[in-house]
């Protein structure tokens, strides 16, 4: 775990992630400007740090209703605005970027942040980036696998000689600057299905598992598949961190939490994904065994501890700002995390 800068003696890490979505508040129909949204994301990272959270990450999406396409630039601003919190992408769509440039960017952000930067590399669920950035969608999988591998290679060695299909060859290329600690933690983003998780396991890289909803036990299969695959490929699963990421919202009661959150998720998903979130499924999100961390602080503590018991993961990452959630509600949630949730989670998960 040390290689990934994770210290299990401190307990489960707690972070926030934003996809960088830029959606109207469904209650008012109003949308803040892209500039305001970007500034709020940066401020959110500062508030998260002040509340004692461990991690903050920003996603890359290239379509309507998003605003952090240049996510590494946003992370660079966050690197300056914060001092202690770990920062990362969630995720970087490595398939349609040049791994050399990505590494240069993130190594630079790492130096600016004094060694706090990580990369989560994913494949994109929406694929507007392929046409926009000039890559054929038919190479969706191959582009990801090849570029993810190259990114890891650059991370492991300063001088790289490499040949592949989707990028010009590198001949004793020195990719600089180097990150503060020589290399960066690089995670594979997994959408919750075991078939993608096993690839992370075979490669022996940390897994960042995002999930929408459903029983927590369903995702245990994914975590198990990941660790089994890692073991099979000769890696030690005990040394590979797992992060889980999903919807989070705390309020005085689970009823109030569902009321506050539902319109944001439902309307936001209609716009970004083409389908709303069925109310019936959302109502089940309040169940103690559901993977969505929605409810009162006490209920959320119990859920996260239950998930930790199931997965034995090292980091939980909450998504609370989706769908035009007003900033005052985000502040209130960060307060609740810092004052009520985090202390208990740490107490019961530290080794």
């Amino acid at each position, binding site marked *: 775990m040390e290689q990934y800068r994770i210290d299990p003696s401190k307990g489960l890490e707690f972070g926030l992630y934003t996809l960088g979505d830029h959606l109207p508040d469904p209650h008012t129909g109003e949308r803040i400007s892209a500039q305001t949204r970007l500034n709020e994301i940066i401020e959110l990272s500062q508030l998260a740090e002040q509340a004692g959270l461990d991690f903050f990450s920003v996603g890359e999406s290239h379509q309507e209703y998003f605003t952090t396409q240049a996510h590494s630039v946003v992370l660079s601003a966050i690197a300056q605005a914060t001092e202690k919190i770990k920062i990362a992408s969630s995720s970087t769509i490595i398939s349609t970027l040049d791994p050399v440039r990505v590494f240069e960017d993130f190594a630079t952000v790492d130096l600016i942040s004094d060694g706090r930067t990580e990369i989560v590399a994913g494949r994109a669920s*929406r*694929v507007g980036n392929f046409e926009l950035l000039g890559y054929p*969608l*038919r190479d*969706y999988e191959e582009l990801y696998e090849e570029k993810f591998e190259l990114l890891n290679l650059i991370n492991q060695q300063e001088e790289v000689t490499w040949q592949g299909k989707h990028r010009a060859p590198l001949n004793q290329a020195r990719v600089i600057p180097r990150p503060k600690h020589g290399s960066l933690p690089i995670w594979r983003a997994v959408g919750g299905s075991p078939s993608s998780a096993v690839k992370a396991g075979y490669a022996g890289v940390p897994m960042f598992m995002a999930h929408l909803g459903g029983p927590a036990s369903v995702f245990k299969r994914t975590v198990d598949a990941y660790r089994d695959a890692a073991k099979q490929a000769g890696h030690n699963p005990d040394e590979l961190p797992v992060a889980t990421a999903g919807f989070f919202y705390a309020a005085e009661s689970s*009823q109030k939490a569902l*009321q506050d959150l539902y319109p944001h998720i439902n309307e936001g998903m209609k716009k970004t994904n083409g*389908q709303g979130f069925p109310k*019936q499924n*959302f109502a089940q999100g309040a169940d103690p065994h559901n993977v969505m961390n929605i409810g009162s602080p006490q209920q959320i503590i119990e859920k996260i501890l239950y998930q930790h018991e199931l997965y034995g993961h090292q980091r939980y990452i909450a998504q609370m700002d989706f769908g035009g959630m007003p900033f005052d509600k985000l502040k209130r949630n960060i307060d609740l995390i810092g004052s009520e949730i985090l202390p208990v989670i740490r107490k019961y998960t530290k080794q």
Partner: protein
Amino acid sequence: MKVVVLSGSIVGSKTRTAMDYTMASLEKQYPEIETTLIDLKDYDIQFSDGRNYLDYPGDTNYVTQTIMEADAIIIGTPIFQASIPATLKNIFDLLPVDAFRDKVVGMLATAGSAKHYLILEQQLKSILGYMKAQIVQSYVFIEEIDFDQKQIVNDDVLARIDRLVEDTIILSETYQQIKQAKEDQYDF
């Protein structure tokens, strides 16, 4: 309520003829309902490559979005090689797995032989069920002999289409009420 009438083939005329009558029946029986006819023959639709339907350009985007926005859909299809045509299957492949959640879907088939009667029962219903449709169980099956000069010449067929339209709309209205009653139980 929004209703889409989908003519699922780019070959031949029988299905389109039946769907034209379906449109006319809808407009006559339910003039207040917003109806859209999509004849796949009129659009240049690409094969599904797995992306989110919102990410397709042009006609593919228009057709998938229009279907996704509908409350009820009446699908008309010919039978080719003892199955639905590839053009119709492609529409299903372009859509999300649960695309028909909360939608009512009625079906109509045109065929050259009565031997194809159970194709919808055995093939189309299973696809629609997988995609979470509320299926109108009775469908209309029309044989070649019922057409002449691009007209339906069998009054019984016309009456069956009228009933399919009625069943689809009534089921859709009722389903919306059921859904509303269910959602009213939640206080969010």
